[in-house]
């Protein structure tokens, strides 16, 4: 049994028929051949497969492609275009935040998620935010520095955005009347 899905990947609408059991990471890598997102473990611990699903970091090995139907997905390939690097990628380059590079795409996506929610994170906050991303090469310190470097670059560009944003897109109410979140979360 195949299931039709329509997923916007890096801004491009893609339509496919997939087996329901197909994991999002395999959909990206093997169906669309967008291979920047990696697989590092089987148990949802390593975060090498981290992508953005509707703008939030998730592990694409723990999401079925059918669950992403109608959603937008951003992978590392979608961060910058035309051979340029964005601030986070640049930060990693400058601070030696990678060695073998295998965990890096996932870390970049987690870093973006963090910096959107917290533009000026402390080292401790960064470490906590990347606890779902394992790296065997760096020992993490240069990654922490990379994210701080990126945060600085981003703040310098957008001083207005430097104030804390409310991360959850929840609409809540103190009244008894029902308030609904958008159906596609």
């Amino acid at each position, binding site marked *: 049994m195949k299931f039709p899905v329509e997923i916007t990947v890096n801004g491009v609408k893609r339509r496919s028929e997939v087996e329901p059991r197909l*994991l999002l990471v395999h959909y990206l890598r093997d169906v669309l051949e967008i291979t920047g997102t990696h697989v590092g473990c089987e148990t949802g611990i390593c975060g090498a497969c981290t992508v953005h699903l509707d703008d939030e970091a998730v592990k694409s090995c723990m999401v079925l492609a059918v669950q992403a139907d109608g959603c937008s997905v951003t992978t590392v390939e979608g961060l910058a275009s035309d051979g340029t690097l964005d601030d986070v990628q640049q930060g990693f380059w400058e601070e030696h935040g990678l060695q073998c590079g295998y965990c890096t795409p996932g870390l970049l996506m987690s870093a973006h998620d*963090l910096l959107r929610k917290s533009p000026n994170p402390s080292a401790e906050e960064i470490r906590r935010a990347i606890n*779902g991303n394992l790296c065997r090469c760096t020992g993490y310190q240069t990654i922490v520095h990379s994210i701080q470097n990126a945060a600085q670059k981003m703040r310098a560009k957008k001083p207005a955005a430097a104030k804390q944003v409310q991360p959850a897109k929840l609409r809540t109410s103190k009244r008894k009347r029902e308030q609904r979140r958008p159906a596609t*979360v």
Partner: protein
Amino acid sequence: MFPANFNYVRPNNIREAVQFLNEHKDDAKVLAGGQSLIPMMKLRLAAPEFLVDIGRLPELKEIDLDDAVLTIGSLIRHADIETADLIARACPLLAETAAEIGDAQVRNRGTIGGSLAHADPSADLPATMLVLDARFSVAGPDGRRIIMAEDFFTDVMTTALRPNEILVSIEIPKMSRRTGCAYVKMHQQASGFAIVGVASLITLGRNGRAEDVRVGINGVSGVPYRAHAVEESLRGKPVDERNIAEAAALAAQGVEPLSDIHASSEYRREMATVYARRSLQRAAQRASAPQRH
């Protein structure tokens, strides 16, 4: 790494979902955020014939607060609970607990209902649910029913949910004034799950003594439990260091703690005491502080 084949169903509403579950019962499994189920399917520890994806049902994504109850839809994600202002104000213990779950990516995807229905003995939310006297609103073929948190967790990864039922929402009664709560946890170093997780709640009376004490413990036993001995010991007493320590010493009383490569039964028992003490101390501080936590 590769789940077995299954049939995928995406019902349009709770009624359809329940109807489908009622037809297929144990052959079907409910998929919410998938952060517990999908890993098990990848290891083929779970291979349901039907997967019922309720992840898009809007009626499960509501969050409401009235004068008496905070109602949280079962699809509300840990990340939302961790960061939503409303929850921080109404039930900071829940936010503190959610922040301890998994990692950022898992919290972005995992749901409160999914985690509770999975009932992993080392998960973080159950103890907090016990302490908050949460009520689980459940939809089944015969309509809605309420399961009290204390009755919900029946065994290791087993709940009072029937195969044809869906957890719809969690209702948390409003806390009294002069109440402080805390959730503290010792992490299993690899998985991040709780070796011991202790949620506690202390309400102080006008005399400064503990009027209400509730302690819930994860990770120690196959089923999360209320540590009644601890509660009774501290109730009616001033929440000083000595009384708290005395009470906390009873944290694993009557429990045969789990034992695995990460922590022996004996160690879990000892850590239950240590973490119960820490949790109670923090709760007591917060109860005494002018700003309620």
